[in-house]
């Protein structure tokens, strides 16, 4: 299934979890719980 472009990628620094939020408001709920923006940093390094 193709990935929707409007999803907001988030990652959790402690558990390594990754998720995509549907909209900005849902992303805000997760950010308040400690999730950070972007895919997991280790993945970013691999792709660079």
């Amino acid at each position, binding site marked *: 299934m193709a990935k929707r472009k409007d999803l907001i990628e988030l990652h*959790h620094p402690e*558990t390594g979890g990754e998720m995509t939020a549907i909209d900005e408001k*849902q992303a805000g709920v997760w950010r308040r719980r400690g999730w950070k923006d972007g895919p997991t940093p280790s993945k970013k390094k691999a792709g660079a």
Partner: protein
Amino acid sequence: MSTAADYTAPTAAEVNAGVRLTPFLTDGPPPAAGSNFLDAGVLSAAFQSQAASTFGGGSGTMTVRRVRDTATTDDTADDGYLALPRGTIGFLVVAPYGVGGAAGAVAIGDTVDIYPIEVGNRASNISRGALATGSIDLAFNNPIEQNYDIAA
């Protein structure tokens, strides 16, 4: 809980990284019960024996309270409703025997049920003399993991 390496064996950290919904709920998720039965009788017997067939279903509606921040007119306090817009895919974790961590966090040894869900739709209920609530229509997209003891 939104992601887990293995949803049938989540870690305490994975569960606690999720959004705590109990401050927004008066009822839990719809019961994920439901099974079909098939007839397994044979000509030689009068007793109509049956066997368990396909199971699942039970998808339904969960109601969350909508909460306003008393100092603003925005949605910053409405975490329960905001966590579950249409199209959300994730897991509901229920701890029927309570949790051992501080401030409602789960701890190792807690027994939980994990419901994999997809939110089909979300609607708002507003009526005079009642708390504003949101109706979250949930589909159970995988079998429920029951009575799992958090091990890590």
